[in-house]
């Protein structure tokens, strides 16, 4: 049976031989290279664009905002972001001019000879400045979006509470750092329309953006995904920008144009994880039950709206975590600053708010005098209870069992005691910490309804089944998992399945490859479509009960002969009974959740204040594991990225610009920096996922940072409140003497 099998990655051979084709590997006849000239100023009016006399500009293709045929906006949510700056700039690195030439070297040289003169205006760089709104840089009050939800009687609960714990927690920006930078190759003309090939997660987002920019109908725009070297959300919405740029150059040049960023440009100019600040106020009883939670969650969206409202919504919804509390006030605000717009990154708001919550819960435990695990245990939400946003939790929840398993696997209580006893005499101090959390799978609220995803499957005359969806392989295993699901549904070996390359000319819009939805939502649609296909074949006598590959092939050939093409589609239908109110933003936030308890064991060297993660255990309930190797790979990779966020990855800001935009100075973990990451799965099948699977790609980002900081607090007695917790930060929290 295919489900549950560690089928080898379908495109694995191409990847290990260097034959997989990424966008920079493409060369088209007559192709030019493109480059982007960007603002150095963080905010101001464009007074002049001067092209220096050293360059013969007639040899280059030059594009500005005046060259946009349609609407000079990147179509997304609010459409406030220009494709190219017109009369003003709102962030450093904002694109202003595009150049193309056949010689990439000459382009670099020419770029230095374009001078953009800007009359500066006062910028806003911090969340506090944005909220104070003494300078307004966006809308009326620098606020892209706000949410407010309240349940129960929060003020009364605080007034009566025996114990109240306050805390502020901060998270910094994080660069996705896919090893393949952003790139697009475009072929565009007024006569033929626009085609782009490139690195991306969401072909139909790019399609929509191009239609709007060029004022073209859908059939005149075509988007093709190439092998993509990592995304993590960094290639969710940003590719629309670079695709529009490449296409504008091609439109003007009348030739193909390839626009690929180098690492420094990609780091400085593209989206990052939203920085955040969360203020917690928690009322708790003397026996450790949560009485009231008041959470104020703020994220920094940068200069344009992009996806900030959705990041805010997910972060706000997750800010109360996997707990039951009768009185809850959640407030969220996404603010504008003059930095390059922030955007999607694995977890999408939840890592930020869950970091704050889970670090806070350890402090609440200490205030009550309970161990960190016991406080969690007494407050986990149970099936039948109502969440902070008003969702009655219907699926089985076994957080207690997950906690038990994590405690046993890590010898948590014994180590906690032992480390505390031994540490005072040691230069290297050990700590162990945990985090308990959940992650909603699929789009929030009515998001999946709005997407109205469609997949198609076709059968060929030689009995192969082709799967057509716009969901992309970006390393997480889409191709392989889709093939397993389709094979299981049709009852044939996996090599009878073909996954069609996402090309908007060929595949329907099955929605973006984000939000941990690809396997769960789209995989389920594939399952449904294959079942529909089989039904069709019963018209030509394919037995419903079972058949072999030959019988299937004959039936396909027969059907095609008689009726023409054999194709079935499936469209998303919300699971029955889900209710979500878009106005009040309450109700069934997600169709289902994955649940987890993570434990980190650390060593803190008091000579150098370096923290090393010695062991990491990740226990999670994920519905059903379709492919054990791929699923574990997702957890391991997500934990590694989150360890980077917790301890190493710091974006240094100077006047709204990333000052450390090199891989030498922006530090992600190497093979020497990571512990063994031990992964354990539980399965509570989800009725609406393929084979019972829930989405798990983002879950592993939520737990490691708080687990690690809780462990460091245990090891040192310090009280860290922000990530990244660099050695310099830890030293200043601990005091400079290493006694």
């Amino acid at each position, binding site marked *: 049976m295919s489900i549950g099998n560690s089928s080898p990655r379908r495109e694995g051979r191409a990847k290990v031989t260097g034959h997989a084709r990424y966008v920079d590997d493409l060369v088209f006849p007559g192709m030019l290279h493109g480059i982007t000239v960007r603002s150095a100023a963080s905010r101001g009016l464009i007074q002049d664009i001067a092209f220096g006399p050293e360059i013969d500009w007639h040899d280059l293709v030059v594009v500005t905002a005046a060259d946009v045929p349609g609407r000079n906006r990147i179509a997304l949510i609010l459409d406030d972001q220009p494709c190219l700056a017109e009369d003003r700039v709102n962030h450093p690195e904002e694109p202003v001019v595009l150049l193309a030439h056949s010689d990439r*070297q000459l382009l*670099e040289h020419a770029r230095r000879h374009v001078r953009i003169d800007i009359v500066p205006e006062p910028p806003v760089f911090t969340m506090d400045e944005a909220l104070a709104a003494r300078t307004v840089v966006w809308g009326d009050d620098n606020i892209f979006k706000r949410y407010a939800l309240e349940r129960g009687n929060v003020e009364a609960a605080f007034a009566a509470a025996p114990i109240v714990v306050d805390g502020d927690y901060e998270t910094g920006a994080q660069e996705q750092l896919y090893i393949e930078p952003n790139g697009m190759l475009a072929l565009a003309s007024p006569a033929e329309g626009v085609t782009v090939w490139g690195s991306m997660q969401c072909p139909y987002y790019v399609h929509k953006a191009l239609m709007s920019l060029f004022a073209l109908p859908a059939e005149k725009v075509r988007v093709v995904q190439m092998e993509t070297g990592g995304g993590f959300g960094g290639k969710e919405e940003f590719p629309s920008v670079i695709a529009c740029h490449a296409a504008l150059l091609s439109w003007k040049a009348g030739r193909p144009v390839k626009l690929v960023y180098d690492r420094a440009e990609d780091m400085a100019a593209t989206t990052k994880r939203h920085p955040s600040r969360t203020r917690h106020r928690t009322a708790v009883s003397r026996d450790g039950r949560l009485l009231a939670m008041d959470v104020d969650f703020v994220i920094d969206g940068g200069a344009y709206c992009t996806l900030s409202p959705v990041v805010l919504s997910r972060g706000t919804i997750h800010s109360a975590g996997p707990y039951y509390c009768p009185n809850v006030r959640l407030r969220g605000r996404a603010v504008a600053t003059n930095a390059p717009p922030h955007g999607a990154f694995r977890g999408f708001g939840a890592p930020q708010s869950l970091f704050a919550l889970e670090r806070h819960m350890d402090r609440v435990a200490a205030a009550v005098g309970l161990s960190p695990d016991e406080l969690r245990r007494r407050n986990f939400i149970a099936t039948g209870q109502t969440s902070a946003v008003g969702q009655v939790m219907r699926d089985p929840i076994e957080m207690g069992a997950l906690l038990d398993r994590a405690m046993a696997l890590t010898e948590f209580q014994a180590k906690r005691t032992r480390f505390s006893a031994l540490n005072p005499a040691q230069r290297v101090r050990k700590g162990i910490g945990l985090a308990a959390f959940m992650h909603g799978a699929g789009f929030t609220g009515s998001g999946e309804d709005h997407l109205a995803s469609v997949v198609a499957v076709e059968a060929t005359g030689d009995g192969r089944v082709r799967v057509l969806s716009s969901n992309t392989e970006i390393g997480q295993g889409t191709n392989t998992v889709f093939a397993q699901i389709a094979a299981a549904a049709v009852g044939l070996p996996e090599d009878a399945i073909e996954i069609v390359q996402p090309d908007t000319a060929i595949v329907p819009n099955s929605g973006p490859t984000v939000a941990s939805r690809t396997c769960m939502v789209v995989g389920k649609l594939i399952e449904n479509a294959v079942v529909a296909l089989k039904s069709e074949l019963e018209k030509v006598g394919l037995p419903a009960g079972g058949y072999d590959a030959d019988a299937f092939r004959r039936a396909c050939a027969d059907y095609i002969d008689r009726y023409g093409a054999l194709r079935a589609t499936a469209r998303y239908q919300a699971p029955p009974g889900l209710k979500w109110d878009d106005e009040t933003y309450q109700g069934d936030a997600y169709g289902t959740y994955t649940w987890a308890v993570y434990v980190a064991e650390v060593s803190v060297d008091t000579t150098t204040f370096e923290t090393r993660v010695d062991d990491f255990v990740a226990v999670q309930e994920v519905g059903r594991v379709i492919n054990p190797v791929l699923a574990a790979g997702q957890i391991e990779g997500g934990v590694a990225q989150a360890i980077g966020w917790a301890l190493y990855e710091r974006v*240094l800001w100077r006047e709204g610009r990333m000052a450390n935009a090199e891989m030498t100075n922006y530090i992600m*973990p190497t093979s020497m920096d990571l512990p063994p990451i031990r992964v354990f799965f539980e399965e509570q099948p989800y009725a609406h996922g393929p084979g019972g699977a829930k989405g798990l790609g983002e879950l592993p980002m939520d737990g490691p940072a708080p687990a690690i900081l809780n462990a460091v607090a245990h090891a040192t007695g310090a009280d860290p409140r922000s990530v990244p917790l660099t050695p310099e930060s830890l*030293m200043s929290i601990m005091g400079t003497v290493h006694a």
Partner: protein
Amino acid sequence: MRSFLRDFDLAAPRTLDEALTTLAREPGVWRPFAGGTDLMVVLEAGKLPPGRYLSLRRLRELRGILVDDQSIAIGAMTTYAEVMAAPVLRAECPSLCAAAADTGGVATQNRGTVGGNIANASPAADTPPALLVHDAELELVSLRGVRLVSYDRFHLGYKRMDLAPDELIRSIRLPRGRAGWIHTWRKVGTRRAQAISKVCFAAALDLSAGAPGAQADRAVRDVRIAVGSVAPTVIRAAGAEASLRGRALTMSSIAGCCEALRAEIAPIDDLRSTAAYRSQVAVNLLEQFLASASPVTN
């Protein structure tokens, strides 16, 4: 790749004589280019000064490790990988081998050279503190002749060296006869591999032997302490050394040595770290080393 290559040239003379002749003929026009692991990075960032570069790649005279009774001479174009593989260096210069192993990753170690690292003169370079602790001496050559410069007098200031425009480093000489010294090397980087150092610390101690069975504090016959990334150049902490030389290792003398070190370093805040961190950690590393070497304070 942000440089316009037409503004650059790279040529590879076949012999040392040819190289020195070129440098002498057009002083200041040609800049030496060794393994490329520093200069190519700067080129790609668009920050390498345009001009003419002289590759030392083919110069056999700059390669090889020569050993005699008194000293070891490491050719300037010896790679980190070659340093790590040389039995005599593994046996007698452990700090240098540790520094080479901590520089970049395998790929950098296969091409980066000791001479290139010295001449690049980054204050954060890894091998310089080890070289100082091993009392390195540089052999500088030009058409005008050969001169020897003690390495602790080679770096004059930030990116300024006692190296004339017509000179090349031919070899790095390390004296032998240090059996019995206790060595330490520790690099504190931004991560455990592929990292630029925030502090790098090398030290060596020659302790007198205590009387058999005695618990008396051992006297410091001689000591070397060198630190990188805490000043515009690598520094030999002469003041810290002087405070310890000839004294017993006690909690008091260790504390005094640490305070002397703190006073003679001048770290800064930069993209990677802070002055306060560098200062404290340098002192902590020294204290940890001295405490571990002393049986009483352990």
